[in-house]
């Protein structure tokens, strides 16, 4: 079998194992967190007997392993369960909220925002990284470096507030609220998500750009690059045809990491722009100990991470013949 296919199959199998362990860790972490759903929902108003009523209805009085096994059983058959919130036995009909209904629209939003930020950020970072490596030591290199470093060293919410100040208050170009409607069409979504996407871009470009630059510069002293240089190949050609192919491994790794971050780590940006994404859902669910929702979010994040890394590893293998044909 082709080594790449072997790797893919191996990774997918391992991915399942990872998912299992992740769900176990998250499940037990919530268990270790003080309080449960009833106490969290009722807050200051919680009484022992009302909390007990919640426990009974949600099955929280069952032992830990039974609850976990029941959840795993559901997931294997494709049922992520129901959110703890909004459940009620009154009114006859079952109107509980399936986790999937809660997550699906938000996941769509999250992927949309991540995609938008990635489309701007990845090419920009590669371009800046390559050109900075090409003209290293020049004024251009230094300015690009200082600028990206400055944007990366401000906290996300700070960048967001500054963007809001300029683009929503001084010049009313974009709205400061990105609470997109499920019925919004594509361009409306783009318009509403502009500021969060720009914020995210500013936050991740520096990391990818610097890694690209460093990886290329690291290769510039290699004998084969010097050889090409001596042959009189132009610098830009050297970088694009000789250095870049060998620099892909670290670059792709950093890109994968940042793309995963775009999906997983944007809670703060979601809060500032009131963007209805999965991050906010997960934080809320953790706060209220809504275990099925936390578990489902964790699974989605884990799958995103696993797939992006698989992708990065495949590229690393393909671009490195030594790994492609191991001795």
């Amino acid at each position, binding site marked *: 079998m082709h080594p790449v296919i072997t790797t893919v199959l191996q990774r997918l199998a391992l991915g399942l194992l990872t998912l299992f362990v992740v769900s176990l860790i998250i499940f037990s972490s919530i268990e270790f967190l003080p309080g449960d759903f009833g106490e969290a929902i009722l807050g200051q*108003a919680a*009484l022992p007997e009302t909390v007990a009523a919640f426990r009974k209805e949600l099955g929280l009085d069952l032992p830990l392993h039974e609850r976990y096994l029941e959840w795993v059983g559901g997931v294997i058959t494709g049922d992520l369960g129901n959110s703890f919130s909004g459940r009620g036995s*009154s009114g006859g009909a079952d109107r509980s909220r399936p986790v999937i209904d809660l997550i699906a629209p938000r996941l769509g939003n999250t992927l949309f925002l991540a995609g938008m930020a990635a489309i701007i950020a990845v090419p920009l970072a590669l371009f800046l990284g390559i050109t900075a490596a090409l003209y290293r030591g020049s004024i251009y290199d230094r300015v690009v470096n200082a600028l990206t470093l400055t944007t990366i060293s401000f906290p996300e919410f700070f960048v967001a507030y500054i963007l809001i100040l300029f683009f929503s208050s001084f010049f009313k170009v974009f709205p*400061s609220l990105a609470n997109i409607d499920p019925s919004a069409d594509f361009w409306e979504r783009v318009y509403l998500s502009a500021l969060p996407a720009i914020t995210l871009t500013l936050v991740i470009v520096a990391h990818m750009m610097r890694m690209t630059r460093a990886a290329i510069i690291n290769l510039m002293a290699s004998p084969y690059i010097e050889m090409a240089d001596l042959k009189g190949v132009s610098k830009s050609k050297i970088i694009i045809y000789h250095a870049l192919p060998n620099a892909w491994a670290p670059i792709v790794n950093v890109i994968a990491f940042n793309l995963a971050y775009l999906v997983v780590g944007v809670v703060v940006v979601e809060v500032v722009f009131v963007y*209805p994404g999965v991050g906010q*859902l997960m934080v809320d*669910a953790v*706060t209220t100990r809504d275990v099925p929702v936390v578990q489902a979010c964790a699974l989605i994040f884990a799958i995103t991470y696993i797939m992006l890394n698989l992708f990065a590893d495949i590229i690393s293998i393909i671009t490195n013949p030594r790994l492609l044909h191991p001795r």
Partner: protein
Amino acid sequence: MDIKDLEKAAVEGKLDRREFIKRATALGLAAPFATSLLTQSVHAGMTPKKGGKFTFGSSHGSTTDSLDPGTHENGFATNLVFAYANHLFEVDNTGKLIPELAESFEASKDAKTWVIKLRKGVEFHNGKPMTADDVIAAMNHHRGEDTKSAVKSLLSAVTEIKKTGSHEVTFTLNAGNADFPFILSDYHLAILPAFEGKMDWQAGFGTGGYIIDRFEPGVRATFKRNPNYFKSGRAHFDEVEMVSLGDTTARQSAVMNQEVDAIYRVDPKTVHLLGRNPNLSILEVTGTLHYTFPMRVDQAPFDNYDLRMAVKLSVDREALVNKILLGHGAIGNDHPISTSQPFHNGEMTQRKYDPDKARHHLKKSGFSGTLDLSTSDAAFAGAVDASLLIKDSAAKAGLDINVVREPKDGYWSNVWNKKAWCACYWGGRPTVDWMFAAAYMNDGKWNDTAWKTGPAADRFNKIVLEARSELDTNKRRAMYYEAQVLVNDDGGALIPMFANHIHAVSKKIGHDGQVAGNWEMDGSKAIERWWFA
């Protein structure tokens, strides 16, 4: 049209109101409990007009919110429930109790039996007429063994609810309570349609002025006006959108950039700057919200009277009001009754920062060492900073305090009501009795100072119980005055400040001259009470 004409217009269709007030006065409960303080409100008192889409930013809202009124606890939920549903009684914008879905009521002499006649011809949004069965199902949602309601204890005095007519319900209490109709105005006790004898809250149908169009928990709720609304002179907007804006800066940006028409919980730090925005007016209301630092008297060292007194005297209350509320509030006197409430004891001397006296009490208590003060901004915005100020002023009185910041997450279940000394807040309780019953009486479920025994506590419990069924206002006042003195002196609560509600409202919005102070956003009823000028 002036304000008087307006008031007349507002009460049109409520011909029983006068009669109600007469009866209510006889029971000594209709005096206004919250005076509102209006600043810079340009359009207050203008003629209400129909139409427009009102967008408002709520500082609350979580993805795990639901429509179950038993679990409503944040500002998003209260505004939502007051928009789409009604209650038996309503606290109006001047602080008076008026019937809402109730038409009239009658109490027995001992205030134990309450017969409530319901308004006829009121329909739920699904077309079902509202009857006594719905009211009983709605009340029972919060009663019984397996209820999950946050207000279970509020109705624990109710022994029986009987249907005494298609539109008449009779409540029987285990002890007299002259303030019972106030309890029925609590936002949790919304009247929603019954289905097979149980309250059906999942469908989101109420009798309110607005019909829920879409409810996305933690994001937004949208409403359309109910064309069949039974109240006249209310529900002026055609459409309403309520957006959850948890981050203070995002919320203030949104209202400054006119993306929303109104917000509440303006940061006191930046009120003066926000007020400079030409499109906004700042609406500030004094209410019953107060910030407390309960000391548990059942745990050492707070079981010592002198130590509690040393703590109470070593707090610089003025500094707290000036620095935490930036002047947008009032100094507290270690009892939970606000100056805006009718039975507030104004004759008592205000406790002041007195390091020397504090040192004297500290010495007498024999305590030496460090006191841990558990705090978190989950208790109230600025609680951590407030604790640091207390530490600073107490140090000058020789009292060593260690401020422990606890995680916001799980604060109410793990810290509050458990740790010996922590930060806490108490929101609007419309009556003195209700406030004492919730947090200071010995059978109170949320007695966070554990102040239950001893001569002073015994005396306190006795007189508050007596006052509950006392119909003579003067006697009642004397009892409540004494109760406040007892809490102030012997109780475990350090209550240094009362906070104002601060809103930023677009100048396009109009509202009545007086704005309710029981909750933020005009008693959480801005959606039904305000209009576009």
